[in-house]
């Protein structure tokens, strides 16, 4: 057990799997010689060689298509997008081929797509998005969004082990800011199981990724006991954990960094309304980014991404309701 950053935890988990299983290899833009845009695979090429750490041309289509083909041939590729935003180039291969293959032909496609996502550093509209909701709508895929270093390592391991295409959304804002104890040995964090970040009785916040920390900071500033459910994965998502928490507190805020309309928070809110209507003591609240591209300007970006003060306001409204 040692204290690791979120980024080191991902790197460690990936390295552990590559040492353990020769079918596992990484591919992506600048993942080899350069060690990846964020240095997650730094030193990998030295350890595993150029054939297991492949520098690819600037074509996300080719990366995902190649990974899919390799998976069909029995490999366990882990592909990196430099930014999650660029996965849209590979939409067809991912959604039409990889997600459907197992259902069409019975052949599993065990690929992992690492998707550095999220804003908060003035990356602008092409380098700051959280596109997980788009993929949560695609049956056949799995979407993982860890918030802690421990979960990042356990979930990258689970993602590699999983026979389905798994999108691993790693939040850039957490890479070097968040540290935590991470076990040295190999372990698997189950996909589809939420984690209670903190327990509380008065109101539940359902969230994931970097917003877990925004919620925790806000929880300190309100007069009331806040339970934070960190979903950890949104496809499949842990309905039971959410419903249990809602049944306890009867008030709920669904919080995400992605934009509001069509965001995954709507699915969660709808499920709560369907399954836990008679346990609600207040309307289900959603807090998300407004329906616009992520702005460049630091001031505008701050207004765009839900901030601690926004969460405090929403929590107060719910507590006082």
């Amino acid at each position, binding site marked *: 057990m040692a204290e690791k950053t979120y980024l080191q935890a991902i790197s460690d988990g990936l390295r552990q799997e590559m040492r353990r299983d020769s079918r596992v290899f990484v591919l992506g833009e600048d993942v080899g010689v350069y060690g990846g845009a964020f240095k997650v695979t730094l030193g990998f090429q030295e350890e595993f060689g150029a054939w297991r750490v492949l520098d690819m041309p600037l074509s996300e289509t080719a990366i995902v298509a190649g990974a899919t083909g390799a998976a069909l041939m029995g490999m366990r590729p882990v592909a990196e997008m430099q930014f999650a935003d660029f996965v849209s180039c590979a939409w067809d291969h991912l959604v039409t081929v990889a997600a459907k293959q197992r259902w069409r032909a019975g052949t599993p496609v065990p690929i992992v797509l690492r998707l550095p996502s999220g804003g908060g550093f003035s990356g602008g509209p092409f380098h700051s998005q959280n596109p997980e909701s788009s993929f949560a709508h695609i049956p056949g895929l799995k979407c993982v969004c860890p918030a802690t270093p421990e979960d990042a390592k356990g979930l990258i391991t689970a993602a590699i082990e999983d026979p389905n295409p798994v999108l691993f959304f790693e939040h850039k804002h957490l890479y070097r800011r968040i540290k935590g104890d991470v076990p040295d040995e190999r372990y698997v964090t189950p996909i589809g199981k939420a984690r209670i970040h903190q327990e509380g009785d008065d109101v539940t916040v359902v969230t994931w990724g970097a917003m877990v920390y925004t919620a925790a900071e806000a929880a300190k500033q309100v007069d009331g006991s806040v339970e934070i459910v960190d979903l950890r994965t949104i496809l499949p998502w842990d309905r039971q954990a959410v419903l249990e928490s809602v049944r306890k507190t*009867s008030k709920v805020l669904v919080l995400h960094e992605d934009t509001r309309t069509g965001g995954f928070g709507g699915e969660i809110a709808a499920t709560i309304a369907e399954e836990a*209507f*008679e*346990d*609600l*003591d*207040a309307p289900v609240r959603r807090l998300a980014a407004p329906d616009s591209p992520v702005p460049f300007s630091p001031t505008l970006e701050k207004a765009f991404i839900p901030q601690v003060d926004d969460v405090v306001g929403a929590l107060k409204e719910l507590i*006082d*309701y």
Partner: protein
Amino acid sequence: MATNTAVDVVMPQMGVSVSEGTITRWLKQVGDTIEADETLLEISTDKVDTEVPSPGSGIVTEILVQEGETVEVGTLLARIGGEGGAEAPAVQPPEPATQPAADEAEAAAAEGAAPAEEPQPLAQPAQPVAHENGKSFVSPVVARIAAEHGIDPSSVPGTGSGGRVTKKDIQAFIETQAQAPQAPPAPAAAPQAPAPEVAPQPATAPAAAPAPTPQPAAEPAAVGETVEPMSAMRRGIAEHMRRSLDTSAHVTSAIEVDMTKVVSIREKLKREYQSAYGVNPTYLSFIARATVETLRDYPWVNGEIRGDQIVTKSYVNLGFAVELADGKGLIVPVVKNAETLNLLGMAKAVADIAQRARNKQLTPDDVAGGSFTITNPGGYGTFHGTPVISQPQAGILGTYAIVKRPWVIEDENGGDAIAIRSIMNLTLTYDHRLVDGALAGRFLRDLRGRLESWGESDY
């Protein structure tokens, strides 16, 4: 008891678990004279329907809760003035929290002899209960909790936005009520001061029509529909039936019994029992007697599951499902220690509880503690049914119509013959968690054996 001072009539505590009652009928009106112990009103709780005798003599000066309304135990229902009919000072508990439960009317009245305070808002029928609840919105969770506990949300003080009743408010309200000291159990007990929780004004609004029974989730009637409030008894039945099906693994087995011998013995005994004891030896008492004997050989059928343990009993407390006279409910009075009763005793006991049930004279003790139940829908000619077990028991016996049927019997030469016999179906509905099908089958076989071989000198 001659009463010179005014006395209060409050909703009596009809059992430890009974928290509210519904006024079904006032037998006296304001201005009528009433004697002590004369029946003043009838009430219905989820356990029993009963009459409430007047705690004192005098003139009924006030009736504060109308027919059809459901109120908490301890709620002031009426006042009876002194003997002369003079308006006596209203009894108001000066310090509800510290006042000991008044032992008798005089004590309560004496304490209240201080200048009368205003009657509680209950006395102003046109006014809704004062609760500063400006916002009438009831959230789904509050509506559900209110329905589960039979509480009118408008009687709960709200602390939410605009005075809304929050989940915490109603939970605290329920907790406060649960902690309130229990009043003496008997309906004939001397009047008590209203239960201490005066703050929440423990009552539904007198003028809260149209649905006096709190049913917050109810929808208004559509064209062609009539809506009536559910009685406390009906709510109790509904809750118990649902809970029983959710608890026990119900399975029903049936058997055909040749009752010819019982029929002929009963014919003979009938005259004797009627003239000597004034009681009718019903078929039910024969079946009950045979059932009790058989249950002693099958302790699990007479047992219950408690937690993860099996409880068996050295006694048989036999419940009988009795339909009320108005056809609007069912009650299961229990004959305690039925194993000590012979046929005559059983016939008397069954007649007694049936009569008291129909006359609403049962006490909560009469309906508690059953270990097995018999239900008898056969009077209407039905020949089969699958009754619901009365929790926490393990079984319920159904008895059905006795009908003459062509029946294959053995003649004296050992050959087959068709005879006309009186045949009755019996069903045993049992909790398969505890009682297996084979055990139930053997139980029914033995019960049939007892009934078919009934001798004139038996029991």
